[in-house]
């Protein structure tokens, strides 16, 4: 019989392979060469140091939003609001990064903490409403996304600047960018944030699996009645889970604000980092390590795909369909799991 561990490993791999196959079929139907297309994708992600640096840069926020969604999920909550939490985190990091003068050793941690706190605040509200009023977190977090987007735009145009569409650049003392990293990656925008993201993954794993706080959060996630019976404060744990989840997403915003861009622009649409985080968490089985691996895959797809129109002539619309298909197969991994189990059940006899 297949062990659960094996299945957890095999299922995502099959999902990705099926997604790639389906993408290949689509390319074939429209008269493009899928092999050339995927070679272009691979080269676009790893073909040279610049692409490699860009891929790592893209992976960084994906890890964090993946962790955010996964953390909430393990606590029994569905955080659709990572997107809004990214936006407020980004804004807070840029705000603190540009408005304070201090040495790096103080300034940088301060901006990062500000971003995490902003994200946590954006998670706190849905958590509070769920804990006290039983309002479903999905509805509130979706609304919070729009509030974040429009409040951020307003603040950028009217408070942080005088009717300008983007903020002043942050001080060097708050920047995650590294001359050295940029140089060895052919002047990509790769920055030190990847270390923060990986560290955050370790924190999530430790917090959830090793501490009493994690024990409570998981217990509440599985069975609120039993948790209450056991003397845990269910409401407190729901709020805490949403705040920690929001904190991770806020950090993802800081990666963009302090690492990639160094400023923030008013946006007419979402960054999608938070929404992609849902797929990352799903593919990663809602574990810390899984999210990191899944984030790598998503980063590779996202950056690698940029090369497909130029190198293989595949139009970018088709590339998007391709990526969507892969996500589709990931999301339907349940079906794959089911088929696998059935198949092996039959084999057993």
């Amino acid at each position, binding site marked *: 019989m297949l062990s659960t561990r094996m299945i957890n490993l095999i299922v995502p791999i099959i999902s990705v392979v099926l997604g790639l196959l389906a993408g290949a079929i689509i390319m074939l139907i429209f008269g493009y060469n899928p092999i050339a297309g995927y070679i272009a994708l691979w080269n676009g992600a790893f073909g040279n140091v610049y692409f490699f640096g860009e891929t790592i840069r893209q992976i960084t926020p994906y890890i964090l939003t993946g962790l955010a969604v996964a953390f909430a999920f393990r606590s029994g909550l569905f955080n659709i609001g990572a997107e809004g939490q990214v936006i407020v985190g980004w804004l807070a990091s840029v705000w603190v990064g540009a408005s304070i003068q201090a040495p790096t050793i103080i300034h940088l941690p301060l901006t990062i903490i500000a971003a995490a706190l902003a994200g946590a605040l954006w998670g706190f509200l849905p958590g509070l409403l769920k804990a006290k009023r039983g309002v479903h977190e999905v509805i509130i977090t979706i609304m919070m996304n729009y509030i974040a987007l429009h409040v951020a735009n307003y603040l950028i145009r009217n408070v942080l600047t005088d009717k300008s569409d983007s903020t002043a650049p942050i001080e060097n003392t708050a920047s995650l960018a590294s001359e050295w990293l940029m140089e060895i990656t052919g002047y990509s925008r790769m920055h030190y944030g990847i270390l923060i993201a990986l560290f955050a993954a370790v924190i999530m794993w430790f917090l959830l699996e090793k501490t*009493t706080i994690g*024990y409570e959060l998981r217990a509440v996630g599985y069975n609120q*009645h039993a948790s209450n*019976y*056991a*003397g845990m*404060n269910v409401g407190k744990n729901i709020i805490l889970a949403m705040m920690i989840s929001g904190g991770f997403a806020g950090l993802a915003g800081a990666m963009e604000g302090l690492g990639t861009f160094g400023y923030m622009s008013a946006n007419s649409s979402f960054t999608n980092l938070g929404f992609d985080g849902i797929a990352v968490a799903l593919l990663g089985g809602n574990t810390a390590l899984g999210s990191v691996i899944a984030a790598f895959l998503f980063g590779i797809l996202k950056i690698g795909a940029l090369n497909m129109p130029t190198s293989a002539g595949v139009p970018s619309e088709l590339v998007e369909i391709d990526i969507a298909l892969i996500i589709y197969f990931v999301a339907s991994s349940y079906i794959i799991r089911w088929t696998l189990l059935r198949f092996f059940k039959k084999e057993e006899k």
Partner: protein
Amino acid sequence: MENFVIEMLDIRKEFPGIVANNNITLQVKQGEIHALLGENGAGKSTLMNVLFGLYQPEKGEIRVKGKKVNITDPNVANDLGIGMVHQHFMLVDTFTVTQNIILGNEPRKFGMIDMKRAEKEVLELSERYGLKVDPQAKISDISVGMQQRVEILKTLYRGAEVLILDEPTAVLTPQEIKELITIMKSLIKEGISIILITHKLKEIMEVCDRCTVIRKGEGIGTVNVSETNPNELASLMVGREVNFKTEKKQAEPKHAVLSITDLRVHDARNVPMVKGLNLEVKAGEIVGIAGVDGNGQSELIEAITGLRASEAGRIMLNEKDITNLTPRKVTQSGVSHIPQDRHKFGLVLDFPIGENMVLQTYYQQPFAKGGVLSFKNVYQHARTLIQEYDVRTPSEYTKARALSGGNQQKAIIAREVDRSPDLIIAAQPTRGLDVGAIEFIHNKLIEERDKGKAVLLVSFELDEIMNLSDKIAVMFDGDIVATVEPGEINEQELGLLMAGSKKEKVGGE
């Protein structure tokens, strides 16, 4: 040759680390009620899940009406006329009775579900077999006994000729059990055969024709019920003699541990359920609360343990006011609680059994230090309890979900008794346990009593109340209507008191 509807021959089923069924043979005759008896974790549910197509056996042969079959999934079982009512119900709470019954087999008209016809069919079916239900009621609004009828109807609707009932009476009140027995009798008159799993030997003696016994996964044999007696059945299944009447010394009650005055509690819909109740439990005594389900027992327990706010009155524990404290504070004050609904309250089913053993104490030394769990100590503790309380599980890392129903219960009892509290509240502590385990748990509770603990027992089983209690408090309509000693009353009189007859208080108070 005999006329068997179902034959399971030499069945073997393994789970990782455990052989749940080994060489078990079960042959069911047309139109009989066939009991399946065995200790907790003996493999009864597993065997029935094999018959129902949920598990595939490693070895063995299944025949239906003499024909060899291969039951690959429950749909195949349905087509063969096999229906199963599981130990834990599988109904959609927000659907109506009819919707649940037709789910998956909906009658259609122009591609749409023909609800009218469905309700008519359900009503016909329920009249034919004497299973009264309201086809339009929502599952969440009807009693457990009613839900069980819906489960039975569900299988009959699919044309079941063989009905598997996995511990149907464990969740029922004595009155509901009587009704179920009538239903079973009318089912076999209609030519249906029944496989009944139960731990209650009385029920086997009353309704069953034959009984197959399994012990630790091994088939022991099949006996004719008319040629046996409860003692023989018990020793067949446990492998040793079992005492039905628990031996205990005279209680030596000391100071009051729990004293409740004028307690008033409302239920979730704000209906008063406990109405000015007074109760005292002393150190070194077992007080049993007898009563028909729904007379405020649940609300009383929830109020004591902090799960529900009380409206008025006072709850004192060792002279300390614990009224409306949080569950954590109540626990810390020295109260243990074996909850009535073990799946809802007692366990986190997706946690390993070891982590369930520290559900209230995970944050204390030695299980945690500085907020970091010591899994080594957690699992060490679990191993000790599993041994001492004979919880049958492949390992302490097994998810609670994978344990048999009775062993889940034993795990909870182990956890609650081991905390060594001043007051143990035991609600239906032996529900779903085999006779050996019941004996063990009863002795455990008596042992705790003799150590000077106070025990508050709530049970719908009159046997259990009579056997275990030093004092019986009869609860009716939210109040204690009589306090009696078990020696000075018989089951009939107790039954009358529980039904609310305002007989003069029996005995002194």
